[in-house]
């Protein structure tokens, strides 16, 4: 068989993925909070290659975030407690969106808030901006005192939050779920019922690290969100469970560092994947995965990457 795996050359494989009316050129996105507003990584590789960029969370007003130390390393992972530091939606629209719009990739704006009204106000402002392909609704941040994870912790509030946003915007909605709940499937179903176009999971797991020598926590906020390869098995299980029970596409997130990890998430039922912590370790992780998926499909004579989704055999 002839292989066309050189970057930029014509390929036999169709890597594109459709989610509702939105087409992604490939299933590899970069996760919110790990890629800034795109600028930071644009010197290192061509962002046009990405399936999509999910921005850092945007709130109504600028946020300073939590006091440092905000991060620490743990076995095969890291904890963070950034606290949604961001420039606020107005500056975001003025200063950051024009840069993102230079690229031929899907732009997904991650929206967060302390109150349900704040989410609506941010979304209403984004309604007037140009070049946004989708919103990711963050009802799963574990590092803020108000809002964040609270809206994603039970099916009723997740439903209320998503459906109120659904009413005020035509943007496709991706709702990001927290794993820190009793039953993530119930919440996914509630989000599906309220009109979400797809569901992304998982956000970070609540975790903690201690320096026993000084008897102090390593994070100023004591607890934070665990990410990285350490959480991959948890994420895979949740993606698999949720994708069995909802009809809308699932976006897999959690410790993805290479092509093999990405394939595992696709098999478990994810239509798209997001690379998070690995952007810190190897900024080019996502482009390596895109090439790897192309290679895998060609070797295995898979015409469309979508054919792999949910094909776990058991």
């Amino acid at each position: 068989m002839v292989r066309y795996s050189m970057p930029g050359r014509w390929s036999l494989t169709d890597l594109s993925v459709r989610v509702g009316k939105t087409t992604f050129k490939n299933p590899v996105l970069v996760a919110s909070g790990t890629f800034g507003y795109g600028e930071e990584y644009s010197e290192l590789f061509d962002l046009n290659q990405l399936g999509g960029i999910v921005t850092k969370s945007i709130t109504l007003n600028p946020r300073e975030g939590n006091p440092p130390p905000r991060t620490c390393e743990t076995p095969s992972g890291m904890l963070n407690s950034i606290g949604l530091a961001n420039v606020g939606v107005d500056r975001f629209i003025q200063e950051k969106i024009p840069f993102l719009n230079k690229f031929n990739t899907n732009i997904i704006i991650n929206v967060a808030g302390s109150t349900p009204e704040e989410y609506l106000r941010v979304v209403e402002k984004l309604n007037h901006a140009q070049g946004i392909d989708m919103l990711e609704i963050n009802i799963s941040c574990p590092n803020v005192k108000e809002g964040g994870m609270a809206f994603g912790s039970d099916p009723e509030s997740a439903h209320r939050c998503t459906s109120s946003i659904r009413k005020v915007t035509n943007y496709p909605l991706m709702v990001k779920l927290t794993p820190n709940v009793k039953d993530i499937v119930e919440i996914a179903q509630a989000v599906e019922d309220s009109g979400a176009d797809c569901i992304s999971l998982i956000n970070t797991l609540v975790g903690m690290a201690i320096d026993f020598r000084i008897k102090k926590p390593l994070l100023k906020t004591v607890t934070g969100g665990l990410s990285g390869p350490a959480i991959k098995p948890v994420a895979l299980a949740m993606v698999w469970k949720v994708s069995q029970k909802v009809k809308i596409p699932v976006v897999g997130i959690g410790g993805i560092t290479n092509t093999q990890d990405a394939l595992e998430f696709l098999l478990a039922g994810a239509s798209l994947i997001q690379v998070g912590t690995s952007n810190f370790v190897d900024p080019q992780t996502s482009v390596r995965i895109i090439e790897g998926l192309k290679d895998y499909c060609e070797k295995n004579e898979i015409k469309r990457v979508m054919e792999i989704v949910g094909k776990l055999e058991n």
Partner: protein
Amino acid sequence: MVFQKKFELISSQKLSEKIFRLGFFAPEIVKNACPGNFVHIRVGDKSSPLLRRAFSIFDLDLKKDCFDILFKVVGPGTEILSRKSTGENLDLLGPLGNGFEIPKGDRSPVLVAGGMGIAPLMSLAFYLVKNQKIKPEKISFLYGERIKGGFVCLEDLKELGIKTLLATEDGSEGFEGMVTELFLRKVKETSFVKDSPIFSCGPHPMMKTMSELSKKHNLFCQLSLESHMPCGLGACWGCVVKTNRDGGEPDYKRICKDGPIFDAREVELD
């Protein structure tokens, strides 16, 4: 311009039991680097230790397209790095950070190093003498360590012709006490430091003291701050320091992107 690629380790030297000096052949990084910049190094390809480790550029050789880092083994990341052999290729990201602001004119720079804080200040010292053509005798270098045996680079400083004032906590060499105490004593000698640009790097408590002294005596002192840095690029906002840049509300700045060099008067260290 920032680069990420594998660069060859061309030299490895053990300076003391825990202190190592590694050299890389890295033309892209060298051409774009200035004193105060750092590189972010992936020490292995395993998931633990996961994150990159940040190291100040210690010596920059523009002619040979190589640079050195200096580090102390403090954990698993630096332990792995200390065992690398020449000829190996390591994944480096850099040069990163803002670098020292080097004032023009004929003023006498004062450099204050504590422990491994010597690393960025040595690259600055080389730069001041070799590139800025500042007469070495005009530079004051204050250098503190716990004990006499802890000092490194004294030969390099001597070769450059820079007068070095040493401080040890146990008094086994030079001034007895912290290097910040030695610095304060010098601040009080009016001929010294008043209008001098000051550059300092060292452990967190030392940086806090230098910041307080700079505010109290209104000194123009640049600190090179250290932190855990997940991305090193300014994307994650994980490595922030509280600042008071405009005299208004406290503001968090990223050590990796807005720093690592900060005006000592603008940072609020705990």
